[in-house]
Every structure is written in C-alpha cells, then in structure tokens.
C-alpha cells in the first residue's frame, strides 16, 4: 500500500509517496537524500539514526514514515547555518576529537543537542539524585542521558569532553 506524506527536513519541504512499510529513516535517506542519519542496528539500540523531530531527539528506525506525515525534522546536516558556521556541538566534536570513524557522529550530535534541551527543561534522569530538584550537568548525567548512542570506536571519553565544551556556548546550544 502506497501513502503520500509531507516532511520538512532541514528547512526544506518534501512530498513523497512511500510504501506503508517504509521507516522514517529509510524515507529520509533513500527518498529525500538526507543521509546524515545513519542506519546502524536498525532496531533502536544504537542511536546512529537520531534526528530532532519537532524539537525532540528521536530514533528514526523504529518509526513508520507514514505515521510522521507533517513532521519537521532537523538532521545533523541541518544544524549548521551557512553564514554562522558549524553548530557549537559540531565544532566541539571536531575540537575534542570526539569520533574516529564518524559513523555514529551525526546521531551523537543530534542526541547531545536534544539531551541538553531536556536538561534545560528540567527533565530528570535515572541518575538525578533528587527528582524534586532541577538536574545539574554532571558527567554522570551526560553519560546516562547519552546511553542510547553507541560508538563502536569507543570515543566516549572525548564525546563527553565535546558535550562539556558545547555547554560553554549555551546561548547557541539549542537546535
């Protein structure tokens, strides 16, 4: 069964017709050509397909495209503004050497940006000591909140440093 849907991806509107079985990830990559989100495990476990949909970080491999008709999606490619240069999170990943092969990086960066927005909103995590208080950005908080993004090269130490650096630019921290 085919179905028509509209998606705004990195500021551009697209109308596509897809088989109902198409995941949002496959629609983005194969139909729209937005290849920043990567297919890693394709089962929601590795986070490499993470994008920011309507302001929230989500995996795209466990969503059917047809159920996301009308969504507005920002991928890692849409974070940088041509005039302003790279997003502070992207710049921090480069400066802190927070990747090796780079395959998981677009997902890591989208996830990290979404994660900082969640902390700014006061959302707790499993390691937040007192749920009554707003969370503080400890290393334990960053690690716990990014546990949905795997890096098989093992760049975690530098990813943590990159996220820390990006928070120094909190005025530009939101997507």
């Amino acid at each position, binding site marked *: 069964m085919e179905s028509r849907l509209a998606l705004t991806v990195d500021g551009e509107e697209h109308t596509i017709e897809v088989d109902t*079985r198409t995941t949002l990830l496959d629609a983005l990559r194969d139909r729209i050509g937005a290849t920043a989100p990567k297919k890693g495990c394709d089962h929601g*476990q590795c*986070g490499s397909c993470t994008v920011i949909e309507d302001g*929230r970080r989500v995996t795209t491999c466990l969503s059917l495209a047809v159920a996301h008709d009308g969504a507005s999606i920002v991928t890692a490619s849409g974070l940088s503004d041509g005039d302003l240069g790279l997003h502070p999170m992207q710049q921090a990943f480069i400066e802190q050497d927070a990747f090796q092969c780079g395959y998981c990086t677009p997902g890591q960066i989208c996830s990290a940006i979404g994660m900082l927005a969640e902390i700014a909103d006061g959302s707790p995590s499993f390691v937040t000591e007192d749920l009554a208080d707003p969370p503080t950005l400890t290393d334990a908080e960053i690690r716990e909140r990014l546990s949905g993004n795997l890096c098989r090269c093992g760049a975690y130490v530098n990813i943590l440093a990159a996220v820390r650096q990006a928070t120094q630019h909190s005025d530009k921290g939101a997507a």
Partner: protein
Amino acid sequence: MRPFDYERATDAADAVARAASRPEAVFLAGGTNLVDHLKLGLVEPELLVDISHLPLAAIEQEPDGTLDIGANVRNADLAAHPAVRRSHPLLSRALLSGASGQLRNLATTGGNLLQRTRCVYFQDVTTPCNKRSPGSGCSALGGHTEQHAIFGASQQCIAVHPSDMAVALAALDAQVSLLGPEGVTSMPVTELHRLPGDSPERDTVLDRGQLITGVRIPPPPAGARHTYRKVRERSSFAFALISLAAEMVVEDGVIASARLALGGVAHKPWRARRAEEVLHGAPAITETFTAAAKAELEQARPLEGNAFKVPMARAMIVAALKELAVETT
C-alpha cells in the same frame, strides 16, 4: 515484511471500530516495539490503526490527588511531570530506568504496558516459541534462562514482562482505562497482564479492538516513602534482571501500609501480596523485612539458569524496606 494497510484514527471510538473490523488489526502508537517486531517478522498484521495522533496526551491531577494519564503521554513526559515526581517518584524512576532518551521521547504509556517480552527465543523467528507460534514448543526451557521467570511460569512459557513502568503502576494500584466495542471499562493494572498457562500467546486479558485510553493512579497514603530499584547487566539502557517498586508508611515504628511489586520475575508485573501481608501492622525492623521477603519467595520456582534471582530478590526487598523504614513525621 508483509504488506499492511495503514489508517489514521480520527478519535478513540473510530480507532476501536477500525481495529474491531479486521481480525489482524493492531494499534500503532510510538512504534518502538511494534515496528521492531514488524521488521523481525514476529507479527504480520494486515492493518495498522494509528492512534498516535489522538488527543490522549494529557496528564491531569484531580482534586483528590488522583492522576489521570492519557495513553499517548510519552514516557519522557510522564517521568518529568511535576505531579508524578512529587507524588509518585518511584514511577518517574521506573520510567527513567528503561530504554534510552530517544526511545522515551517516542514510547507511550499505553504502548509501554502492551510491549512484549524480550525473551531472546520469542524474538528469533528461527526458534520454536509457544508465545509467537502456539504449539511449537518453548526454546527457553532447557536453553538460556538467566532472564526468565521464577514466579507463575508454565511448561509452555517462562518469559517475563519487560516493562519497568508497569511494575511501578502495579505497586501504586493504578487502573487502566479501556474503550472497546462494548464501551468504556477499567481494570487494575495488576489484572491487565496474565500468567502464561496454556495460552502464552496472550500477554493480556484484552479483547480484540479494546484500546487503552489512559491510566489512573490514586493518591499515595500520607507519609508514604517510595523507591524503585533495578538490577541489570549494565548500568543503563538494559532490561531488568530484577526490579522492585516499593512504597511504605511507618507510624510509631509500625508498618501502617506497604505496597511492593517485582519486575523481571514473571509473565506480568508481580505484586508481592504475601510480603505485604507479613509487613502490614508489623514492627518496621529487619526481622520483619526478612520474613516478608521469605514469604514471597517461597512461591518461587527457579530454573537452573535463574536460581540467582531468588537470593537477589530477597536481598533487594530487605534493602529497599530498610531504606523506606525511616519515619518522616
């Protein structure tokens, strides 16, 4: 993946009517479990009724303190809601102990309750499984049983329910609100899921076309202290070997009330009623807690691979009750 039709429901009654109209229809909400199962070939529905756009995404606190949670409230939003963090912190903790940040932004309250077991044999279509393919046999029996049930299993199935949220809701006496072809009903969360018996293919007591529209949580008793504990094979983004949701009220050194539920031990969230019976009215001392854990675990029927769960559950219950045995007034 077998082709399927996709329909977006316009309201809850429309969703029920659409799902009831076709024998192999399923509801689609967050998709984090269902879409995975479509890919793995575990389910082959002919119709997906998309309920994710229905206006069932509110959390309201009624004057008596009851929380009314819409079925489409995302796990992340439920965990972060101020009323939940204030009144039922064990529910927030349980939610935050499950899945990852990205998945909690997608997964819904109703979908979390209806997620299916992570038994590796159930998820592998090349192995026999009575839950997936009734009558084909249970590969877990005689296989790897570290993750499997110690309570209420059968010769047909030893799988466990994977939800953390449901364990907290079971302890909190939450009610599930339902809409079906026969109209509006509700039932305790503790009665939603069933033990496997001779029909492990049925996770819950729900009939075809019945839709979870929300969950209601009564207010906690005055002076209640809560905790949610979870043991897993790594410290984040993993299912429970054992989890425990516990709430207790202690007055003048005596246990006025206690509610406990275990996860990772049965085909359903396991409300520890035998332990509660021992606790109620007894002095809040270690001997009581040990006796309560013993009473509950006397029913355990562990297998060779998961015998560790019995002492682990015992230790977890005693440690949690000790933590809660501090009087707040």
